[in-house]
């Protein structure tokens, strides 16, 4: 066993850490604390993962607890379920989260239903990079949340900051339910996100939204990388329009923190939902219905949304930029909503 890898000890040294290193820290700490936690996936061992998130883990924890699998998303996700039955707490890496679709059956029909069927808790985390903007085309850039949002029994977590990423990956590993953990690849090494994290052990609870910024005029509900675009938009709206906008980062998509959204809407009476995922069947639709049920009487305007367009994710920069929601889109929608 070798000493711990460099990139998992930033917080212990009091240094600011980025998004990827924060996840690596959380994963490393949980593996140190609980020998039942094992890591499997394509190239996670010797190579250290396509994004090097688990670099050095195999040398530290050994080939038994960190191992490279055949290219078989269904096979190793199913195997993780079996290992969980026998008392392990597997963390599965999807090299790119797009490939989880190859494991759709085992995730939705097996892992998600295990407890309910009487086959016991299913402490499995499936984590990996998601999201567009890196010019990687239709199959290395997807948002996968809505393919799983409809499945009872799953939890879906999608952090936007290093602090939340670390606290939530730790909470996910300790959770007895299957958790899909989405990591936006453009956040991995974004220097602007680096922050000093607590040096002691901490978790961020699954199922709780976070108020990024309080405001009176309008609520923006968003998550993942869009939290940062929303923040940029809100700065402009404040400067140019004098608008006071509240931003809510969902952090967990399933179970959805409906009460946090409804509570905010009851104060601002206007709601804009922003997500990187495509429009039809996106989470904005469900949030809109939930607010309709819980806070219809408080609304002063229709609920609006800014999302990606309903196409596969294109490769050319011009096409991909058109596909993705941009800061300008959020500003435009917020102005329309404020003026309604």
């Amino acid at each position, binding site marked *: 066993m070798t000493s711990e890898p460099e990139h998992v000890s930033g917080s212990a040294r009091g240094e600011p850490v980025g998004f990827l290193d924060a996840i690596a820290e959380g994963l490393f700490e949980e593996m140190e604390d609980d020998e039942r936690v094992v890591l499997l996936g394509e190239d996670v061992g010797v190579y250290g993962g396509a994004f090097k998130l688990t670099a050095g883990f195999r040398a530290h924890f050994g080939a038994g607890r960190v191992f490279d699998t055949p290219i078989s998303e*269904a096979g190793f996700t199913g195997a993780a379920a079996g290992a969980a039955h026998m008392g392990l707490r597997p963390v599965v890496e999807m090299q790119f989260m797009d490939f989880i679709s190859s494991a759709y059956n085992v995730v939705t029909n097996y892992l998600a239903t295990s*407890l309910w069927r009487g086959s016991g808790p299913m402490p499995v985390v499936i984590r990996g990079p998601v999201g567009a903007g890196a010019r990687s085309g239709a199959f290395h850039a997807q948002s996968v949340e809505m393919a799983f949002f409809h499945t*009872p029994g799953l939890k879906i977590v999608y952090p936007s900051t290093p602090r939340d990423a670390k606290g939530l990956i730790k909470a996910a590993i300790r959770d007895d339910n299957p958790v899909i953990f989405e990591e936006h690849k453009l956040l991995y090494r974004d220097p602007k996100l680096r922050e000093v994290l607590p040096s002691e052990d901490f978790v961020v609870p699954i199922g709780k939204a976070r108020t990024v910024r309080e405001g009176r005029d309008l609520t923006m509900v968003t998550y993942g990388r869009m939290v940062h675009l929303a923040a940029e938009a809100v700065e402009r709206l404040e400067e140019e329009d004098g608008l006071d906008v509240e931003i809510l980062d969902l952090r967990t998509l399933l179970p959805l923190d409906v009460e946090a959204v409804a509570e905010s809407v009851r104060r601002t009476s206007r709601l804009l939902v922003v997500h990187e995922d495509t429009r039809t069947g996106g989470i904005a639709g469900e949030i809109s219905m939930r607010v309709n049920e819980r806070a219809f009487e408080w609304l002063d305007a229709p609920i609006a949304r800014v999302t990606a367009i309903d196409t596969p994710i294109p490769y050319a920069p011009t096409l991909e930029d058109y596909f993705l929601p941009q800061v300008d889109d959020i500003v435009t929608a917020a102005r329309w909503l404020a003026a309604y």
Partner: protein
Amino acid sequence: MIRVTTTMCSSDASATQVTPEPSRAQLLEMCRLMHLARATEERLELLFRQGHVHGGVYRSLGQEGAAVGTAFALRARSDGTGDVMTYLIRDTGAIFTHGGEPIDYLRHYLARATSLSRGRETGVHFTDFDRGLVGPISHLGTMVEVMAGMTWAFRLRGEDRVGMAYLGDGGSSTGEFHEGLNFAAVQECPMVMVLEANGYAFSTPTRKQTRAKRLADKAVGYGIPGESVDGNDVVACYEAAARAVARARAGHGASLLEVVTYRRRGHAQHDAQDYVPPEELEHWASRDPIDLFEQRLLSEEWATPDELEDVAAGARTEAERAADEALAEPLPEGATALDRIYTDVTLPRPWTRLARPDPHDV
């Protein structure tokens, strides 16, 4: 004892260990378990005709020898430390052999609140970890992956436990069978993959599933031993399975065992089996695994006719008692369906069913 001819795809010397021959008591127990499977299924069929079964009923008529013989090679415990097994609809005999009881089997088909899934799941989809029984989902092949992971955990912890996964000829066409068995092979998991070649997957004959002459030949592609055995010879099934189990327990990894048998009923009760030539059914009826085994028990003087009659009658009585008991038990309350979706999150009841309906309460 008569030996069946087997062929190994592997030259691994450790693969051909000598298996102790079953004792007379063990032979009689195999006979009892085959009768118990058949009697319980016959009782279930009757309950189905009487309208007590809410879903489909699947018979394993003719496959009892394959199921009992293979499962008999496992170490059955009731404290969660024994070998593990995942099975399919036609493995009633394997379930009972590994410690499952007719009452649990019948409760499940009858959707009783007392069943292991509390009425949530159909047929044999029940799990009892104490006994090492892991219920399947309906998607064929998934359990191969799950069993690969279960046995991988044994290997990681250095436990000398073994896992057995059952699948049919049809199931061996799935991608998940491939991914699961490949994982088990690469990771040298202590797993025995039993392929029950029973002639048909619903209405599709085996020749429309695969060009492989024998399902055991698929083992070559995974670099593991493969063996094919007469599935209607319960002792041959036991011996072949015992060899594979011994290999797994000794740390030599996964292997594949094909048991060649025949499904003598339709896929389920609704299937009239009109796609099957009658002479084929007649041929296999003459090779009934219980009849064949009893003839042998008598001819080798391992049992007397009276003993065999007692075994059969005992099985029938046990099945009857279990059916009466299960039938008297209640169905689950509707609202219990909301329980245990998560370990820690409570789901709301539909607002329209609350005492004072209000859509804000969702």
